[in-house]
């Protein structure tokens, strides 16, 4: 269990951060996900863990999304400004261990563009893209995680790829 959690925690954190755009909120979601996952599914066969873990994570992100939507509506109604999501200062620190600084800078820039583009995607497209393209899940697994049909996954994924390809022409080359 320890090895499994260590394997998924970083990607889970990044996925939560793409959705929330906030480090602390993302960490809270990972915490809720891990606790719920071990309480409910730790006795299930190990080969089912990955899909079940991401299913819990997706569910927690969706709940967060709903809560935040309502909170933002109330704040807008009260006339208060929306909370700004602070950018992680560690992301902009130079990596001194890299032998080729220009290559690293290019990579950092590309990553910044990609992450911004992923954050801009609608939540369902973002989830379908990350689960399929990054986690390497097949249609069936992705549909199970997202609690929708395989057809819906195909639609969300292809729309996400289409949008990202348009936005990331520089990365393709």
């Amino acid at each position: 269990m320890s090895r499994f959690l260590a394997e998924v925690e970083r990607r889970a954190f990044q996925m939560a951060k793409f959705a929330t755009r906030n480090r602390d909120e993302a960490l809270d979601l990972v915490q809720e996900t891990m606790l719920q996952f071990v309480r409910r599914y730790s006795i299930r066969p190990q080969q089912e863990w990955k899909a079940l873990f991401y299913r819990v994570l997706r569910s927690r992100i969706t709940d967060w999304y709903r809560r935040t939507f309502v909170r933002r509506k109330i704040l807008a109604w009260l006339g208060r400004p929306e909370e700004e999501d602070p950018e992680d200062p560690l992301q902009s620190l130079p990596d001194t261990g890299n032998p080729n600084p220009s290559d690293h800078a290019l990579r950092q820039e590309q990553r910044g563009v990609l992450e911004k583009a992923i954050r801009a995607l609608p939540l369902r497209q973002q989830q379908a893209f990350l689960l399929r393209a990054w986690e390497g899940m097949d249609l069936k697994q992705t549909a199970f995680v997202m609690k929708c049909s395989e057809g819906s996954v195909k639609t969300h994924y292809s729309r996400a790829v289409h949008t990202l390809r348009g936005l990331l022409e520089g990365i393709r080359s």
Partner: protein
Amino acid sequence: MNAKDPEELFLEKVQGLLDHGTENLGSHTERRLEDIRGEALTAAEEKRSRFFPPRRWVLVGSFAMATLAAVGLFFWLSPSATTPPPTGQIEDLEIITSQEQIDFYQNLDFYRWLGSKEIRKRPNGKGL
């Protein structure tokens, strides 16, 4: 040569960049993730120990053994079905199942006493 599909190349590039993003999350985030993992593992351990609580199994086992022993003792001490019932029980059964008035049997001593009185009253000692 196998030229890679541009779509495939694009996805490979995306995967590489996303993986690169998880390599250095910062010491605060990494420490917090470690803490979260530790907390989750403790919860998993608690869950496992609640699922198989040793003390509860001992209690359940003892109760089952005691119940079995009590049932066994009951059957061992109870009379078997083949043993004939005592004579008194048969008489009682005949009285209960008979069509006669039960009052007659309850006052049997009185009728005996009455009978003996009648016999004593007659000079020749003969009955009616």
